[in-house]
C-alpha cells in the first residue's frame, strides 16, 4: 500500500468490507435510452428542491402573526400582513440571491412534478410495471401523491392572496365531506378558517414530513431498480435473461453526475430569466379580494377544472343533512378514479393477461393496443380537465363565452377520451400490421420493374435480421379461455363464475390483436413471391380466436 488512495481504500475496507460492494456495483450495467432520463430528471430536481429549500428555511418565518410592512417594496408600505408573507418579501428584496433561490425552488417544483408524470407515462406505455416491478410501480405512485402534497403545502406557505384562496377552496372541499367534513376543517386549520395555525403546520409538513417520506421512498425505489436491474428496450441481443448497456463506472457516473448539473443548470436558467410567483404583486392574504384569471400550479389544475365543469344541481339534502355532490364528485370521485386506476393497473393487467413470468424487455406501445389506448384516453381526460381549469383564460383569450366553453368541455370530458381510445387502438393495430408487412415484404423502393412477361412489380428489399427482430420479438398475447364448468366427474367446479368474469376482462384487453410474423409465415411469403398478397397479412387471419393459456382452475388457486 503506497498511494494515499490505496491506503484510504484499505482503511475503509478493513472497517466496512466495502470492497465487495464496489466490486458488485462499479461495473454494473445500465441500458441507455433517452426515456430513462425522465426518472433521473425527477431525482435531480428533487435534489435541487432540497438544496434551494434548505436555503429558504434560513430566512422564511412560518408564522401567521400579523405585522406591518416597512420594507423596500413601496407599494406595500404600511400594509398589515402575516410574518410568513413579510419574510417572503424579505427573501425577495433584501436577501441577496433569495429571489433566485425562491424561483429556483418553484421552477424545480414544477419540473419535479412534470418529470414524475412523464416518467410514469414512460413506465406505463412500455409495460415496465410488469412482474417483477409491480411493487416498485406502487412506490412510484406513492411518490406522485407525495409530490402533490409537497407542491400543495409549499405553494401555500408564502400566505399571499393566491395561495390563500387555494386554501380556502381546499377548506370548502374538506367541509363537503359528509359527517366529518367540518371537523376535518377544524383539524387542518386549528379552528375556523384561516386561523393562525395553518402556516406553521404546513411548514412542518412541507420541510420535514413530506420530504422525509419522499427521500425514504426514493431510496426504496432506486434500491428496487438495482435489485431487479433496469429494463431495456427490445433489440437484437437483448432478452429477458440479460441486460445490455454501459457500466456504472465510469460511463454512468460521468453521464448521470453530469446530467444532475445539467438539470440544476436548466432550472437555474429558468429562475434567472422567467419570473414565477411574484407574490409582491398579489399582496398578502385577505378573504375579501381576489383577482380573475388566477390559477393554481399546473399539477392542481385538473382538480380545479373538475370543480368548474360539475353542474351545481348535484347538491341535495337528506334528513336535514347536506350532501354536496357537486363538490364531492369532482374533488373526490374524479381524482379517486384516476388515481385508483393508476395505482392498481399492473395488477389488473396481470390478472387479464394471466401471465406470471418476469419481464425485462419493454413493450413497444403498439404491441399492447388496449393498454396504450387506455393510457392515451386517461391522458386526454386529464387534459380536458386542465383545459377546464383554464376556461376563463381561454374565454378571454379567444373572446368566447365561458358558458359555451364549459358546456363543450362537459361533453368533451366523456367523448374525447372515448374517441381517443378508439383512435389509438386502431393506430396501434395499423402499426402492427405495417410491421407485419415490412417483415413479410421488406422495404418498398420507389421503383417499379417490368418483368419479361410484361407484369409490373414493385421492388422490395428484405429487412436485415436486426430490423426484423425488433418487429417479431414480442409474444403474441391471446385472451384467456375458461376451463369447462364441470370437471371430468361432472361436478361443477368452484370459481367458474369468477373465471368467466376474468375471461371477459381478458377478451376486453386482447380480443383485437395482430400477431407477430412467424418464420413459417415468412417462408410462405417468400415462396409465394414478393409481390403476392399473403394470407397471414389479411385482417381476418390476424384476429386469431383465443386458443392457449386456458384459464385453469388450479393455476390461480380458485
Amino acid at each position, binding site marked *: 500500500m503506497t498511494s494515499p488512495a490505496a491506503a484510504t481504500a484499505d482503511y475503509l475496507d478493513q472497517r466496512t468490507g466495502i470492497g465487495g460492494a464496489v466490486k458488485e456495483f462499479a461495473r454494473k450495467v445500465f441500458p441507455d435510452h433517452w426515456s430513462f432520463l425522465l426518472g433521473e430528471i425527477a431525482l435531480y430536481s428533487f435534489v435541487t428542491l432540497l438544496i434551494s429549500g434548505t436555503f429558504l428555511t434560513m430566512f422564511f418565518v412560518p408564522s401567521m402573526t400579523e405585522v406591518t410592512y416597512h420594507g423596500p*417594496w413601496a407599494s406595500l408600505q404600511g400594509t398589515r400582513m402575516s410574518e410568513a408573507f413579510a419574510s417572503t418579501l424579505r427573501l425577495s428584496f433584501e436577501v441577496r440571491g433569495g429571489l433566485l433561490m425562491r424561483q429556483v425552488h418553484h421552477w424545480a417544483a414544477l419540473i419535479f412534478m412534470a418529470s414524475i408524470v412523464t416518467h410514469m407515462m414512460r413506465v406505463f406505455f412500455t409495460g415496465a410495471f410488469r412482474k417483477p416491478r409491480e411493487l416498485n410501480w406502487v412506490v412510484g405512485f406513492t411518490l406522485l401523491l407525495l409530490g402533490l402534497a409537497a407542491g400543495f403545502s409549499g405553494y401555500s406557505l408564502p400566505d399571499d392572496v393566491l395561495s390563500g384562496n387555494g386554501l380556502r377552496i381546499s377548506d370548502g372541499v374538506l367541509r363537503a365531506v359528509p359527517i366529518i367534513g*367540518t371537523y376535518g376543517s377544524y383539524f387542518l386549520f386549528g379552528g*375556523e378558517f*384561516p386561523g393562525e395555525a395553518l402556516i406553521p403546520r404546513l411548514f412542518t409538513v412541507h420541510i420535514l414530513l413530506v420530504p422525509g417520506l419522499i427521500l425514504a421512498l426514493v431510496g426504496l425505489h432506486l434500491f428496487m431498480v438495482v435489485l431487479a436491474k433496469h429494463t431495456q428496450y427490445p433489440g437484437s441481443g437483448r432478452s429477458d435473461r*440479460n441486460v445490455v448497456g454501459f457500466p456504472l463506472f465510469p460511463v454512468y457516473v460521468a453521464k448521470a453526475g453530469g446530467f444532475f448539473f445539467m438539470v440544476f443548470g436548466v432550472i*437555474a*436558467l429558468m429562475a434567472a430569466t422567467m419570473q414565477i410567483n411574484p407574490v409582491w404583486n398579489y399582496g398578502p392574504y385577505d378573504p375579501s379580494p381576489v383577482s380573475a384569471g388566477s390559477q393554481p400550479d399546473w399539477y392542481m389544475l385538473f382538480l380545479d377544472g373538475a370543480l368548474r365543469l360539475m353542474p351545481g344541481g348535484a347538491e341535495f339534502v337528506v334528513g336535514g343533512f347536506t350532501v354536496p355532490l357537486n*363538490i364531492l364528485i369532482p374533488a373526490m370521485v374524479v381524482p379517486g378514479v384516476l388515481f385508483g386506476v393508476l395505482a392498481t393497473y399492473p395488477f389488473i393487467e396481470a390478472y387479464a393477461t394471466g401471465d406470471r413470468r418476469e419481464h425485462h424487455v419493454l413493450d413497444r406501445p403498439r404491441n399492447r393496443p388496449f393498454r396504450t389506448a387506455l393510457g392515451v384516453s386517461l391522458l386526454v381526460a386529464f387534459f380536458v380537465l386542465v383545459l377546464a381549469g383554464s376556461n376563463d383564460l381561454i374565454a378571454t383569450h379567444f373572446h368566447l363565452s365561458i358558458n359555451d366553453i364549459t358546456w363543450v368541455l362537459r361533453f368533451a370530458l366523456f367523448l374525447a377520451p372515448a374517441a381517443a381510445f378508439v383512435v389509438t387502438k386502431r393506430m396501434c393495430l395499423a402499426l402492427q400490421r405495417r410491421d407485419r408487412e415490412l417483415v413479410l415484404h421488406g422495404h418498398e423502393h420507389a421503383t417499379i420493374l417490368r418483368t419479361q412477361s410484361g407484369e409490373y412489380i414493385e421492388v422490395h428489399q428484405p429487412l436485415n435480421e436486426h430490423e426484423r427482430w425488433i418487429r417479431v420479438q414480442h409474444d403474441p398475447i391471446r385472451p384467456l379461455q375458461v376451463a369447462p364448468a364441470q370437471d371430468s366427474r361432472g361436478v361443477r367446479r368452484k370459481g367458474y363464475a369468477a373465471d368467466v368474469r376474468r375471461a371477459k376482462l381478458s377478451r376486453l384487453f386482447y380480443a383485437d390483436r395482430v400477431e407477430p410474423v412467424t418464420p*413459417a409465415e415468412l417462408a410462405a411469403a417468400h415462396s409465394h413471391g414478393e409481390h403476392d398478397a399473403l394470407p397471414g397479412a389479411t385482417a381476418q387471419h390476424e384476429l386469431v380466436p383465443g386458443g392457449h393459456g386456458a384459464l385453469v382452475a388450479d393455476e390461480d388457486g380458485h
Partner: protein
Amino acid sequence: MSDDLELASTSQAQPDRFEDPGLPPHTPRRGDLDPKANKVSERIVVALFTISILGTIAMIAAYFALPPGQTAATMQRSNLAMGLGLAFALLGIGTGAVHWAKSLMSDHEVSEQRHELRSSDEVRAEAVAALKEGAEDSAIGRRTVLKGAVATSLALFPLTIAVPLIGNVGGDWDVAKFKHTMWKKGTRLTTDPLGRPIKAADVTIGSITSVMPEGIEQTAHPLDEKAKAVVVLLRLDPRDLKIQPGREDWQYDGIVAYSKICTHVGCPVALYEQQTHHLLCPCHQSTFDVADGAKVVFGPAKRALPQLPITVDSDGYLVASSDFTEPVGPSFWERLR
C-alpha cells in the same frame, strides 16, 4: 396453439418463433479512429469546465455588485445576473461531464446476465424452518392469552399520542361557529378595507362595494371574522329588483347586501356585470343574479348567496337588521341542522 400456426408448422416444419440474431456489430466513433478528433473532444471538455469556472466567478461578482434594490427593475437585474452565473457554473460542469462520457469513454455495450429474483427452493425451505423454529421457541401458538395481551397493548398505546393530539389540534372543536357571523342587529356596514360607515344616500345605482361589519378590527381574530362576514353591497334601480317573498324589508331603496363568500367552495365573489346584474365568482365561474335574490344562474354552485337584511339607522347609515338567517359559504353536512 392457433390454427394457422399449426397449419404452417405441420406443412413446413418451421420453428414457432424467430431466433434472436444477437447484438449488432459495434460502429466506432470518429474519435476512436482519429486521434485528432479525440484531441478535439478533450479540448471541448476542458472548455466546458472552464465556462463553469467563469460562471461561478460571475455569480459571486454579481452578488457583491448588484443588490436587489428597491424596485422591480433592480431586483430583476440582480436576479438575472446571479442566475445566469449560477446557470453557467452548473451547465458547464454538466455538459462537460456528459460530453466526456459520450466522446471519450468506451462506448462498447456490455451484456450482463439476469437472475430470477425469487430465492431457490432450498433457501425458501430454510427460511420457513427458521421461522418455525422461532415460533416454537416462543410458543406463541399455544399462549393465546399472552398473544391477545400483546396485540391489545400494541393497538391501544398509540392512543396516548393520538388523544391529546386530536383533542388539541382542532382548537375548541366548536364547529357550530360556521353558522354565525359577527353581524347583528344595528351593526354598521363599513367599507373594506378602510372601515368607514356608509350612508345610504352615498350609494349610487349600479355601484358595488365590499363591506365589513363595524368593529371587526377590534375582535380577537379579525381575519377569521372577515372570512365569514364580508359582504357585497349593491344598489339597483328598485324597478329591476325582484324582491323575494318574506324579504320585503331586507333591502333599503334598491340597496341590497349579499354574502361575498361563494356558496360553492368559498372564494370571494367579486366580478360584477352591471347590465345583467350578474355577480361572477372568479374561481369556478358560478354566476349569481343579484336582481333575483342572488340565485345561481350558471356554474357549479347550487345555492343563492345568503342575503344580509339591512336598513338605515337614525343618522342615515346602513346597518344590519340581524345576522344572516342561514350559514354563509360552502355547504357542509350539518349546515341545516
